[in-house]
């Protein structure tokens, strides 16, 4: 209890950059900080600088809709995110920082029998890999979330759902701060307000980075910059198969508890949860065009509101308090791109689309292992950048490219 009252700095203000670090991590979000934390904790590598252009957690880590789950479609994805959920479950105790992880379950609604087939496929794959996930029918949905409008007199009646009991929401900022504190305490230097302007290499290997606060020598650079990944990889001369899009979300004014489980409608591309603060948090799908401009659209509010009320007409009077956007780095197969590139010592974590935050701890542990040992861990081997040059995609997409 005493820690509650003691005023103690979460992380130290760092002075000038050193001239050299063993490892430079570009991006002070959940992935960059997790990688730094696990480098220090699991491998004793502490001569690490995390360079963040703005403040820590200012990008996707602080803008996502905080959902954690592992009920993916591909065996590779299920294994990877499954391990991530396990790590998340232990993370609060490990960091001694309450991440407010609410595992109240995750319901992906099916509005057609075609959608139910995909749900079944996911449930079956999930179960074979030990992930708690099953298809429930309309009655099952009613039991798990009686507030849902199960009427047939709506545009998209609910036919069933995929239920993932261990899915949940977590306090995203707390994850960032907890990891930052953990890394800082182990000696990692966190430098906000430091923008990388160049990546130096020689003979196909990274030798250092240039920043707005001076140049640094290093052997390893890890880019964990989500929507900005292309621009950072360009500095190293590494082309990436990703496009940058905005994803939007909004919250309502705080309300008394109304919804525990997370509701996702694949048909209407809307998802709804209620935060511990009482806000109803609603998100949608990415905007289809690429952009680096993170301002929100009004059409998003209108569409999401319409879809939300189809599911929860009771929320008619809930009032939208604020909307925001984040940048997403979308890969062609909706699976991440993790690990080595053609430039030695330049590693990436990108291609997350909208799933990045769910993977923070597993990205941290696997990338740290890769940096420390030079070997790509088995769990992330399917997610190499090389797969796009060898016709071995790991597709989380279910429907054909155009029909669904």
């Amino acid at each position, binding site marked *: 209890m005493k820690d509650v009252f003691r005023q103690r700095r979460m992380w130290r203000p760092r002075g000038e950059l050193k001239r050299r670090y063993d490892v430079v991590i570009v991006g002070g979000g959940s992935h960059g900080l997790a990688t730094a934390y696990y480098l220090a904790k699991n491998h004793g590598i502490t001569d690490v600088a995390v360079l963040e252009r703005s403040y820590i957690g200012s990008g996707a880590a602080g803008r996502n*809709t905080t*959902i954690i*789950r592992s*009920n993916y*479609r591909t065996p590779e994805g299920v294994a990877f995110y499954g391990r991530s959920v396990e790590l998340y479950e232990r993370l609060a105790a490990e960091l001694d920082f309450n991440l407010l992880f609410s595992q109240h379950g*995750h319901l*992906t609604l099916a509005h057609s029998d075609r*959608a139910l087939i*995909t*749900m079944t496929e996911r449930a079956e794959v999930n179960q074979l890999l030990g992930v708690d996930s099953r298809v429930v029918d309309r009655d099952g949905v009613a039991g798990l979330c009686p507030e849902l409008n199960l009427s047939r007199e709506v545009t998209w009646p609910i036919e069933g759902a995929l239920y993932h009991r261990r899915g949940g929401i977590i306090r995203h900022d707390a994850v960032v701060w907890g990891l930052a504190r953990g890394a800082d305490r182990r000696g990692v230097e966190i430098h906000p307000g430091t923008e990388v302007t160049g990546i130096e290499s020689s003979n196909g290997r990274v030798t250092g980075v240039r920043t707005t606060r001076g140049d640094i020598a290093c052997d390893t650079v890890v880019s964990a910059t989500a929507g900005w990944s*292309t*621009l950072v990889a360009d500095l190293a001369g590494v*082309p*990436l*198969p*990703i*496009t*940058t899009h905005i*994803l939007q979300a909004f919250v309502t004014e705080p309300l008394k508890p109304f919804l525990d489980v*997370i509701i*996702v409608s*694949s048909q209407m*591309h*809307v*998802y709804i949860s209620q935060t511990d603060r009482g806000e109803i948090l609603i*998100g*949608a*799908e*990415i905007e*289809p*065009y*690429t*952009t*680096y*401009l993170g*301002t*929100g*659209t*009004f*059409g998003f509010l209108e569409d999401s509101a319409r879809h939300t009320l189809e599911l929860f007409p009771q929320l008619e009077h809930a009032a939208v308090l604020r909307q925001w956007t984040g940048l997403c780095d979308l890969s*062609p197969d*909706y699976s991440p791109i993790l690990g080595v590139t053609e430039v030695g010592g330049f590693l990436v974590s990108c291609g997350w*689309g*909208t799933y990045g935050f769910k993977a923070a701890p597993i990205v941290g542990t696997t990338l740290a292992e890769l940096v420390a040992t030079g070997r790509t861990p088995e769990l992330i081997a399917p997610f190499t950048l090389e797969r*796009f*040059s*060898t*016709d071995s995609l790991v597709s*989380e*997409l*279910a*429907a054909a*490219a*155009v029909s*669904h």
Partner: protein
Amino acid sequence: MSFLIPCPNCGSRDVNEFAYGGEIAVRPEARPNVRELGSYLYFRRNVAGVQREWWFHRLGCEAWFQAERDTRTNEVLLTERPRASRDEAPPGPEAPALPDTPAV
């Protein structure tokens, strides 16, 4: 922001009326090897700056056109009807493919 796009046929309209066709990629002239094919199919410049791209006016004239847009501001600098040319190939439908669990 929900920016406006000046459709060459219909005039300025909200971006939501249009389908985005992706940045204009160069289609190989001759048979590419697997690596070159992957590069053509998947790798994108994804610039923060002016990008030439395809748009289709779905809720309007139902025609394809090309635009130059600054991806940092979404300002559309110009739009024009396509000029037929072999090397400005559509790489594939970019927008419609989404996983069955959106964004979460």
